[in-house]
């Protein structure tokens, strides 16, 4: 197998044995990016120079016999919303087109400490809002399996770069399904850990109570290796879980005896594509053949998941994104033009004598905020800010936000009840395989339904993993999702690995020019 298609686990062995060098590996990845990324568009920025420097340094230190980190020499792609010191971090928004953070996110610090090679920053939906990466203000990402199709979102670039063999490992973030759904669309593995397992410090927030950083890779084993490197308590994140990080990379290969899987009844209803259903049912049969017991479980409140999510996430977003106002961070409008325009409006109103309109005219400060934000944010971000502002407003808070919090608790209770009888729940990751770009952009609600099966894990704060389990007739990957109780990442990875020892869906690669 060529370097670019190999798994991180294999590559680590080869690096350790001296069979390959990190420079060779990094160059191979950079060459693949060079060859394929014009079409795929997974990266917003390829960090060619610093990646090669890092690779050289790792090779040199290895030669000297120095002790190296867990990911020594392995290229890792970073979703472009993790602050990276000295590197532009854009959130795929015009707002942050030129933002260079003066500090590293904790995950970046950990990757650097593990001697990983940061190869580039991947594309995404603007501020992680979207399910197809079509909301990026800075570039188009296509699905490597079919360039007409979307890679999913918001971690579309993170998934696409893996499928296109541009990097063996990739970091994504998941607020409602943003790791698992693109993993499913691109035929790779994506894990959203339990809330708090990975520090959010340095993750440019979309919805703080839902956001979680997670590993993406082409196999469960690689996913475990990456999770082990980035997980852990962080004093800088007070929502971080103060628990010991298990040795995921060691335990991932231990088979799970007597695994009890619960099939989520509600995930096989209206809206589920028949090809997806068939593949997922087949995957369940594989688990049965491996000795798992399968029972039906019910998550009765999961049907409210999307509704609850689209209240809580925009509410938090409306607040988290307030700092991008042109005064503190982000794009600022052309003030001279703005002031000129404002003066014109004032003059016109004064001439008309409409005291009321005149009284309501923006101050220059308010107009600066208004115009900077109007220019800097894309339509989906604006839509969600408005939704969130509305649901938090006096008079609506109780009806929407507070009610959503209550239902959120019920959703968690459904899971708690289910996990009394089963070890993991299983179902499709997304209701459909990837679709053609442009087909859903005019229908935000249809796009939102793509998160139908993933969003409840974020609301409940539990972990979920998506792994490839087949292809549609048109050749697009299909994903299966496993979800576990809080802090059951080890079990999720073991179950995923178990499936991958019996199947080879994860080893298929798209043909790229």
């Amino acid at each position, binding site marked *: 197998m060529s370097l670019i298609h190999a798994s991180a686990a294999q590559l680590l062995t080869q690096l350790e044995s001296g069979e390959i060098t990190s420079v060779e590996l990094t160059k191979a990845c950079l060459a693949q990016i060079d060859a394929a990324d014009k079409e795929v568009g997974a990266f917003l920025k390829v960090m060619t120079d610093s990646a090669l420097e890092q690779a050289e340094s790792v090779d040199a230190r290895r030669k000297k016999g120095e002790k190296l980190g867990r990911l020594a020499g392995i290229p890792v792609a970073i979703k472009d*919303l*993790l*602050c990276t010191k000295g590197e532009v*971090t854009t*959130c795929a928004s015009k707002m*942050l087109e030129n*933002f260079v*953070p*003066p*500090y590293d*996110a904790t995950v970046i610090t950990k990757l650097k400490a593990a001697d990983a090679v940061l190869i580039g920053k991947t594309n995404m939906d603007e501020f992680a809002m979207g399910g197809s990466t079509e909301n990026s203000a800075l570039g188009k990402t296509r699905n490597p399996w079919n360039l007409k199709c979307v890679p999913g979102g918001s971690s579309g670039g993170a998934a696409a770069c893996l499928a296109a063999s541009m990097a063996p490992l990739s970091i994504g973030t998941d607020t409602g399904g943003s790791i698992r759904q693109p993993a499913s669309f691109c035929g790779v593995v994506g894990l959203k850990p339990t809330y708090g397992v990975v520090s*959010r*410090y*340095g*993750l*440019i*927030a979309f*919805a*703080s*109570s839902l956001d979680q950083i997670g590993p993406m890779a082409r196999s469960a084993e690689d996913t475990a290796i990456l999770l082990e490197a980035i997980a852990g308590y962080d*004093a*800088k*994140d*007070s*929502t971080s879980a103060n628990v010991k990080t298990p040795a995921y990379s060691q335990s991932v290969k231990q088979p799970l005896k007597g695994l009890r899987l619960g099939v989520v009844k509600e995930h096989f209803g209206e809206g589920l594509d028949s090809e997806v259903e068939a593949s997922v049912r087949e995957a369940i049969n594989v688990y049965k053949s491996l000795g798992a017991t399968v029972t039906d479980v019910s998550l009765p409140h999961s049907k409210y998941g999307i509704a609850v999510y689209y209240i809580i996430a925009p*509410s*938090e977003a*409306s*607040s988290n*994104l*307030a*700092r*991008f*106002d042109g*005064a*503190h*961070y982000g794009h600022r409008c052309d003030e001279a033009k703005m002031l000129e325009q404002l003066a014109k409006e004032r003059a016109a109103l004064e001439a008309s004598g409409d005291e009321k309109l005149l009284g309501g005219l923006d101050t220059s*400060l*308010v107009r600066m*905020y208004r115009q900077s934000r109007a220019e800097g944010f894309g339509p989906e971000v604006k839509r969600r800010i408005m939704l969130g*502002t509305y649901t*938090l*407003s*006096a008079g609506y*808070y109780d009806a929407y*936000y507070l009610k959503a919090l209550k239902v959120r608790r019920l959703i968690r209770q459904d899971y708690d009840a289910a996990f009394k009888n089963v070890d993991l729940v299983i179902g499709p990751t997304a209701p459909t395989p990837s679709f053609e770009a442009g087909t859903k952009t005019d229908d935000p609600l249809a796009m939102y339904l793509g998160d139908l099966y993933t969003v409840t894990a974020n609301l409940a704060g539990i972990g979920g993993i998506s792994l490839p389990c087949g292809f549609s007739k048109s050749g697009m990957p299909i994903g299966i999702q496993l979800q576990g109780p809080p802090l059951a990442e080890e079990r999720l990875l073991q179950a995923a690995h178990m499936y991958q020892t019996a199947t080879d869906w994860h080893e298929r690669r798209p043909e790229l020019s």
Partner: protein
Amino acid sequence: MSESPYEIIIGLEVHVQLATQTKLFCRCSTKYGAPPNTQTCPVCLAMPGTLPVMNRHAFELAMQTACALNLEIPRFTKWDRKNYYYPDLPKGYQISQYDLPMSQNGYLLISDPKGQFEPRKVRIIRAHLEEDAGKSMHDEAAGKADSRIDLNRTGTPLLEIVSEPDMRSPLEAKAYLTELKLILEYLGVSDCNMQEGSLRVDANVNLHLQTPEGKVATPIVEIKNMNSFRAVERAIAYEAERQYEVWQETKQKIGDVPKQTRGWDDQAQVTRGQRHKEESSDYRYFPEPDLAPVTTTEAEVAAVAASLCELPRQLRERLESQYKIPAYDADVIVNQGKKTVDYYESLAKLGGDGKLASNWVQQEVLRIQKERGIEIEAFPITAERLAGLVKAVAGKEIDGTRAKDVFAEMLDSGKTAADVMKEMGIEKVDDSELENLCRELLEANPKVVSDLKEGTLKAVGVLIGQAKKKNPNIDPGTFRQMCIDLATKM
């Protein structure tokens, strides 16, 4: 007081900057006066991706204050975001506490030793923690419209203490603030420096009027931007008159118009209407998802309550009973602060006379402090040294007038009272010597003797003057009494 056509209803919101070394949600210094934006980090600058982490010490100081103000401290409290746009607010929201504050339902007892108002229990609705915003500096000079922002203050821990509208006069408002400030200073939870903004006051004021239709209330006005207690007192007094005039003109009642915010112009001594912030009506509060709620155990709260120092009110009562001084004296001493109380207590114990010690502190010590603008710590005569003088006065070795001369000599010389008295030839006059002097003068002044016999006691005054000329060391009080006693027996 009752002639006033209205009753003033006053509620106060006090923002207290807690005396922590570092900010509420990051580890930047809170030191005042550093060059702009030098005490900042990615967290307090609201760099995208940063997260707050609570400063436990700030919470402990808040708990101490809450205990001292008789507030209940719930086992569970959380943080909320208060959303609004302003250039000095980097995150676009302030982390504060909304529906579950860290303390609620307390009170503060206020009274006036001069009896200008009845003692009152001012209820405290809540005290909650929040972070401060930055500072905007608007440079409008020379036609420039530059605004500069200093974010050093951003994230400084504030405790907002909100009273019920239980105060009825500017004087009561001032007494509340004075007592509150004193408590904060005794606890050491804040330096209470109003010039530096460590203690900021907003007053909510309206009037209750008796009309033929019954009692009516005027619209509530919030007065902001007051930087001294005097300003608070005057602003409230001004505002009451202003509201009365407006009411006479418009008859607007509470609810007829939205709550107004006015600022106090200290120079012009008037309140002025402030422009409404467009977002002021709706802060879109919601629970802060980046911070875990804070839990406290009953034992923790009990430990904080037990660790509190003696508070001003208890201290006044103890000084009164332990040193047998009037309430007024205790009030003056306690209001000077803990260091003065310590000084007084040493003086009273070593000098052996609580009331005399109190007089010396109130009159001479405070006078010198004021003249020289010094704190008690810098007062040149230690309590131990001054106690020597108090003892001499108490033992009638020296009279009050001469004692002041001794005091003046002791002040900057470092000498003891005994040394100075020796130099000045002051010594206690022996009783027999005093009696001889007394007899001598009485015999020489038969008119005085007859006056005294008739009960005209002030006649003895003439003799005191003469006696002091013969022997400056005599104690006028003892001499006076002796003359009266002897004259009546003659």
